[in-house]
């Protein structure tokens, strides 16, 4: 019996990249363009610093997971090293940021970036430690390019004082061997205001919400991936399209919502859900349609179904032996956790429409 591919709702980096590729909609051009820019950073002296901006659930991690995945090609692996920082770890100084980067490299490339380098910093004053670690990083990197993936860059900028931001920026400017792939939930002053050290430093790209058609394609891709042929066919019908449009009014084009819906959708539930949202016995539309809080904001980080497992190895990372690491299915969202994520969706919860298909 073929196992249904796992699609993590909150941590796409734990989903197999092949599955993420199969369900990707709307952003193929952005993805391929971004991959090309980082590829150029790896093989030429041009270094790009990309920053993807989108609200929670907009697909930022999905996107950078695929950028990372597509860069894992033989012709690039010998020319670059990848440091994917754990989004839950916060740096309060440039030294701490260097430690996070080096530790990430050490876990992935232990022969090139020995863990003893960080242990050897013990007892040094911060300035000396920063200097020593910076020199070690550059030495161990050799003439390769370091691609740093940093999620929640806006949080990092909030915790780093300006003096530390200046140290970081100077280090990057003095050693043009870095390319950056960052994400943020919104444009933030640290990159958008002229008086800030990093003004204009990042090539920012806003993730557009899904259109109705994008959403329908996403649901189709997921249905195809999960072998839900009946739902797939229904999504091609005028009624199916109308039902997706009704959901779109509520979901506001947020990809995560469709991913969550998809787990509990079948032909019947989609039809009933869409009909409810169109006013056939559903709640007043002013509770559900534009103007109501987008559902994407209804799932605070603390409500995530499970915490991320320990840092090693990073999801989706390919170690030097070519092994790709992924999480098991323990992170699958349950109807209960999805219910927590959808407090503003009374009709679906009260009518029991969110059920496994």
């Amino acid at each position, binding site marked *: 019996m073929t196992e249904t591919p796992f699609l993590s709702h909150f941590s796409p980096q734990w989903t197999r990249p092949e599955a993420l590729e199969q369900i990707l909609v709307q952003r193929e051009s952005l993805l391929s363009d971004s991959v090309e820019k980082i590829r150029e950073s790896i093989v030429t002296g041009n270094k790009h610093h990309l920053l993807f901006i989108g609200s929670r659930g907009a697909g930022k991690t999905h996107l950078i997971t695929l950028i990372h995945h597509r860069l894992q090609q033989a012709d690039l692996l010998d020319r670059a090293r990848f440091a994917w920082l754990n989004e839950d770890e916060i740096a309060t100084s*440039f030294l701490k940021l260097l430690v996070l980067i080096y530790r990430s490299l050490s876990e992935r490339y232990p022969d090139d970036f020995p863990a003893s380098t960080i242990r050897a910093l013990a007892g040094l004053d911060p300035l000396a430690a920063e200097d020593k670690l910076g020199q070690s990083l550059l030495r161990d990197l*050799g003439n390769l390019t370091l691609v740093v993936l940093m999620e929640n860059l806006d949080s990092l900028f909030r915790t780093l004082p300006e003096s530390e931001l200046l140290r970081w920026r100077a280090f990057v400017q003095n050693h043009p061997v870095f390319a950056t792939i960052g994400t943020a939930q919104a444009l933030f002053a640290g990159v958008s*205001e002229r008086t800030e050290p990093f003004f204009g430093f990042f090539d920012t790209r806003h993730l557009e919400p899904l259109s109705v058609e994008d959403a329908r394609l996403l649901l189709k891709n997921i249905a195809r991936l999960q072998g839900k042929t009946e739902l797939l066919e229904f999504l091609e019908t005028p009624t199916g399209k109308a039902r997706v449009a009704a959901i779109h009014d509520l979901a506001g084009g947020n990809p995560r919502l469709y991913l969550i819906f998809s787990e509990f959708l079948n032909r019947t539930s989609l039809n009933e859900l869409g009909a409810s949202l169109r006013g056939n016995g559903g709640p007043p539309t002013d509770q559900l349609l534009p103007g109501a809080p987008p559902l994407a904001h209804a799932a605070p980080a603390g409500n995530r179904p499970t915490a991320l497992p320990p840092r090693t190895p990073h999801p989706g990372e390919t170690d030097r032996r070519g092994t790709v690491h992924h999480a098991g299915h323990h992170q699958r969202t349950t109807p209960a956790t999805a219910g927590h994520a959808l407090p503003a969706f009374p009709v679906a919860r009260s009518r029991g429409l969110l059920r496994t298909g």
Partner: protein
Amino acid sequence: MRHVKYHHTQMSSNPGGQLAPNQIVGRDDLIANMWSVLEGRSIYMNDLRRIGKTQIMVKMHSSPPSDWLTAKCDLGGIHTAAEFATQTYRLSATALSDTQRVLRSMNRLLGQAGGLEIAGLIKLPDGTPAPWKEVLRRTFDDVEAAMRDRGSGHRMLFLWDEVPFLLSNISHRESPEVAMQVLDMLRALGQDHDRIRLLLTGSIGLHHVLTGLKAQGYNGSPLNRMDHVQPGPLTPKHGVELARTLLQGDGIRCDDWDQCATELASAVGHVPFYIHRLVSRLPKADTATPKTIQDLLDREITADTNDWDLQHYRDRLRPYYGPDEKLALGVLDAVAVNEPLDFQAMVREVNLSGAVDDERLRALLKLLCQDHYLTRTSENQYRFYLSLIRRWWRLSRNLS
């Protein structure tokens, strides 16, 4: 060592990133002129943020004339005079590493028998930090001697970026007095070492830092002996060339490449960073036209949340000009609508009531030019320094 060979026949947009020297275009004449100036004196380069000062340094550092040695460093992360001196020593040692010449004077200071520890700071054999003035002076002496050994005409250039941040950092972390001492030391070292030149620049104008230091009692003029260079935007020819190259490199569809490139470069004032940025934001799915380019730019710069931050030029008028803020607004409004304007026309536009003294207006115009709002043409007329700022000014203030 792994060597990578990559044939990239096209340039693609890279707003804010670090460009390879061969992709920094349109600056060759300026750079040639700067090398010529450096034969005689050091340079202070000042201009608006994102005009391309750092890229100019990168290009100069990558291909200096044969009798020049260069060392480049962003000093924005340095917070003490001792760190700065250490960094200068390191830069010099690295730059001279391919020669037989060693930094003899510094080695005498540090002692041959060991005790030298470099980890952000140079320390003497007894473990105490080396005096920063002594490190700077001996390093300059050693570099001067090394250049003399190389033969007549050989010189070394320190390309120092973010010098205003360095001074501001030192002023805050140590004291304004130490920042003043660094400035004086650099001036003195520049006078005493004829084979060493400095090229200083930064994101913010050094004059802002100097103003703060003068308020603390500083009375030096560290920039007096330096040539002042304002790179400005690219020439229209180079701006259009860059725009066309990037449009093609990014795979943007255009019905007429020349029209689109000309419109795009002109709309952002031929500033390379803005050319890169605007190209990067053109939708690839659509065919670009001069109108769609203009519309996109207008949406970008007037959006409630945007990363062009042209509002900065409005907001800083009050702190910069104080009681003359309203007069400055009047001048900028008049130039935005009617540029170019000569002085008499300006008087007619902004001084209808006759309440403003001509000399006060002249002084204000001078400041507006210094702060890169306006520029004075060879015909003695005033216009906006950047057409992008003028464009935003007219949109944001609803001027026709």
